[in-house]
């Protein structure tokens, strides 16, 4: 059930400069429903500002707790990064539609913080390979226990280049499903290079500036391929790649 839950910050870790992982307490019913790709709306502070909540994908759900991973980008993430262990935090969720857990081998493609939801996903599917790109090695979110192929813009980890450069090395016949998440420019470049059959099997975890997070305010619109808009929060955040109008979508 979607509830406004009072959670406890159990652990706060700075994974690398500006990138944080919070472990939050969670009840059984939350963990059961917090499937891969779903998200939570976090009330950053009990004070009036920041005003609306901030959405985060579930990074991993364990017994009694779950994690979110984020990079400090603005006021909301800055406040969150400074919370001390033991702080109470209101968390609304789980929200949205997650990945369709289809059978067959999966390829995961992530850019930067876009890979934050991959641990939760990888452990519940037949995950064959994870392609990761980031600006530098300290920005890579590798998923332990799985085959990661990494590339960075500055060459500090893996080859130097963009995640699209790794696509040539993929044997597409090995995969039945693709999960794609990252900055919109990166996802556009990837989508342009995917073989048609693979594009049809690609699920995108989208991001948008969000108001409510539960489908009412129409703030988090994403251009839809059939015209009009998808609501990121309730039609998604995970949607078929083919349902997005990639030419019109400019992202966050």
């Amino acid at each position: 059930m979607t509830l406004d839950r009072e959670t406890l910050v159990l652990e706060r870790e700075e994974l690398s400069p500006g990138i944080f992982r919070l472990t939050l307490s969670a009840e059984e019913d939350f963990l059961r429903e917090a499937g891969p790709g779903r998200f939570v709306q976090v009330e950053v502070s009990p004070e009036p500002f920041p005003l609306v909540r901030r959405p985060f994908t579930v990074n991993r759900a364990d017994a009694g707790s779950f994690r979110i991973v984020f990079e400090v980008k603005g006021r909301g993430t800055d406040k969150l990064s400074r919370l001390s262990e033991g702080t109470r935090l209101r968390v609304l969720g789980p929200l949205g539609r997650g990945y369709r857990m289809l059978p067959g081998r999966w390829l995961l493609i992530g850019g930067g913080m876009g890979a934050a939801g991959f641990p939760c996903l990888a452990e519940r599917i037949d995950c064959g390979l994870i392609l990761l790109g980031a600006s530098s090695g300290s920005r890579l979110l590798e998923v332990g226990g799985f085959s990661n192929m990494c590339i960075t813009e500055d060459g500090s980890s893996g080859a130097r280049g963009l995640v699209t450069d790794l696509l040539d090395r993929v044997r597409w016949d090995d995969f039945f499903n693709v999960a794609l998440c990252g900055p919109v420019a990166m996802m556009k470049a990837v989508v342009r290079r995917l073989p048609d059959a693979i594009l049809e099997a690609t699920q995108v975890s989208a991001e948008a500036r969000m108001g409510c997070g539960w489908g009412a305010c129409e703030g988090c619109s994403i251009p839809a391929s059939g015209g009009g808009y998808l609501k990121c929060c309730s039609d998604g955040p995970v949607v078929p790649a083919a349902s997005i109008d990639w030419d019109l979508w400019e992202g966050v």
Partner: protein
Amino acid sequence: MTGRTWSLWSREFDSPLLLASGTAGFGLELMEMGCLEGVAAVISKATTLRPRKGNPPPRIVETRFGLLNSVGLANPGVEDVVTRVLPEASALPVPLIVNVAGETVQEFASVVERLETSPVPFGYEINVSCPNVSEGGVAFGASPSTVERVSRLVGQTSSRPFSVKLTPNEGSITESALAAQEGGAGAVTVCNTFLGMTVDWRTGLIPLERKVGGYSSPALLPLTVARVHLTCQVVDIPVLASGGVSRPEDVLELLAAGASMVQVGTWLMRRPWSGTELRDGILELLENLSP
């Protein structure tokens, strides 16, 4: 102080709280989450004659002390609302007030005419003040004579009571309120969002495609209190306060300033259980006040 009631259009409520248009959809998501306890009535998203896909993203930008929105009246159009949405909304545990927008005076009446065929609406809120559209928005609602014409035509078309949602952005809100009353409105909503804009001073970029948006914030409360007070000096019809509510104290302050009912909007986006939280809060405050 249990047993306290508030009334609107001959109906008694155990809460003074209305959910502001645009922040609650048609109440269906909130119903599913169990958030409508403590809510007197839901005010729907604006309904227009034809479907509107709304403005391109981004539609929401948070600034230091508030929120700018530019949704642009996205809605499936009155035909779909009547045939698909309202039958679903008939399951709501509270009444639904349907917000109506139009580009011309006649269009408001046409939308209401179609809505009259549904048994679901409790009343209407006539939105002559959207800051995020080019036709039928702020300038429209700033003219008292237009407000009176819209009110009169809607009144002739509707068997149900309606409130006219006024703009704080242009013209005189008290003159527009008087014009609405003169035209037969059963209430006025004071008021819609304030015109606002933000610019990235480094790049000169303006995030919203229409540049300006509707600004809302808990910090706006005194602006609403003043407008509610001034409006109550000149009209006899109920004033529905809208703008700046985030605490039970805010609700009581607006009621003390003369409002009949109080809307909660942006805060609802953050706290979907606002109806319950604020209603419980005001009952507790009132209880502690009385000996």
